[in-house]
């Protein structure tokens, strides 16, 4: 027990010390000459334009959600289609129920105007 806890203690001490040391060394060693270019968040890449906190249309989400729903449906349809002959009538009916439920949802989305870009 003591050995085990000893090991843990050593790991713990090392784990605490290591990051401190790693942060401390550059602080001590590196020269500090701040400049405009150095203070920017990203030193490379495109310049940002305007506010980053902008609102964008929720219709994106709605499209995305409808898309995901049908995506998942398709994923279900593939294995079903492969094994279709083996599974028989029952699976056929089942898949139709599944699609029917999905269609009600789709109908709902359509009716509520999720597909219209206003």
């Amino acid at each position, binding site marked *: 027990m003591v050995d085990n806890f000893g090991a843990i203690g050593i790991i713990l001490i090392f784990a605490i010390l290591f990051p401190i040391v790693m942060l401390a060394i550059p602080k001590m060693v590196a020269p500090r000459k701040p400049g405009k270019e150095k203070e920017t968040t990203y030193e490379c890449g495109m310049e940002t334009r305007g506010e980053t906190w902008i609102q964008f249309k929720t219709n994106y989400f709605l499209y995305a959600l409808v898309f995901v729903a049908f995506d998942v449906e398709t994923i279900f349809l593939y294995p079903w289609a492969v094994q279709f002959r083996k599974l028989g009538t029952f699976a056929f009916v089942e898949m139709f129920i599944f699609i029917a*439920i999905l269609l*009600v949802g789709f*109908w*709902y989305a359509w*009716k509520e105007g999720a597909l219209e870009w206003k």
Partner: protein
Amino acid sequence: MNYALLAPEITLAIVAVVILAIGLMIPKGPHKGMVPLTILGLLLTMGVTGGQFAANVHGTFLNGMYYADNYASFFKLLFLTAALLVVLSSTEYVQKLPAHRGEFYALILFAALGMMIMAGSGDLITLYIGLETMTISFYVLVAYLTEDGKSSEAGLKYLILGAVSSAVLLYGISFVYGLTGSTVIAEVASSLGSSISPAIILALVMVLVGFAFKISLIPFHMWAPDIYEGAPTPVTAYLAVASKAAGFAALTRVFLIGFQQQVYGGSPEVVLAVLIAVTMIAGNLMAIPQKSFKRMMAYSSIAQAGYLAIGLLAGDQAGVKAVLFYAMIYVFANMGAFTVATLIANAQGSDQIKDFAGLARRSPFAAAVMLISLLSLAGIPPLAGFVGKFYLFSAVINQGWVSLAYIGFVMSMVSVYYYLSVVKTMYMEPGEGLPKIGLGGASKFTLFVTMIVTLFIGIYPTPLAQMAISAAKSLIR
């Protein structure tokens, strides 16, 4: 594959889809006709579930992935009752909603469906599906008042925190799968045996946390006050009652079947006991300074979750029975209180405790129901809450956790303070200038039912106790 076992779920699914479709077909307006339809659908489902319960149906599905036993049936009845009471109590409230009145009922039904799946599932993935079905419905319901900043904020908070908790739960489930090669709870148990390792503990903790979030055990309760306060009042009631019960339904099955040997007797049991103690203490204490009724009830419901979890900690038949019993009476007590709060919100547009002033004169019946509900929540005999707490505490004392029962007793007494502060406002303060509260037929009926049940079960608890015992026996043999 006996599909008759799935009859309640199938019925409710069809009803929900049909209600959604009807909501689309009828012209936009008050949607008044949807209430009786929804109630009819719920009653139909209750009938099917009740039939299964009475027949003591016991079956499994797909190699133990899904159960149809009395334990599940009891919880299904509970969820359906809660949904029914919510629909009844919110009929007037829904008329005042700005938009999307038709979907309100469909969402409540979908949430109930999710809970039913949670109660029945014997497989972690199925469980997760049920959980998400419920939770996603709730995301929408919480944010229903699109014009109201608080409601939207609550919705967003619930969405993010709910997603976080789902992620943790899913992570835990993936660990379980990695460790045992199965997600079927019974197989997980046999594969784990009594072994314990940090990885198992990690999986266990993550699964526990996923549900602890839903039942709002401290310290996973942070979401509850904000979301309870922001959500539309009937939704808050539904959230407090049904969502919590669903969390317990799933957690109890997972713990008692899946991780029985890991949890009980080891340090997880102790940690759970500490969590429960903290939940009871802090939940009750934090309720005291609250000014908003819904916020107070949020803390109260946190504390109630602590009481309920006591039965889970006991982990035997008596404990499970106590959880089932208490969860059921909690539905009625809480729905009674929230129905009155809904009435107040409807008439005065507020949920502050001070706006309950003079309710005893403005609507004596509503005030009386509020009184009885709150006293039942506090556990005052001869109301149902007392019997429920008695079962819970005696179950846990029998397992040796006397200290926890003491904390429960003391905190119940503390809870009387803030419950009675509402009563004091209703009965002692004049409340001049506040409007009379008109009771619609549906609200009156809800209030009447909750009051009668709370009184009746308090005086003669045996019928419900027998149901709970039969359900507990189907879980633990």
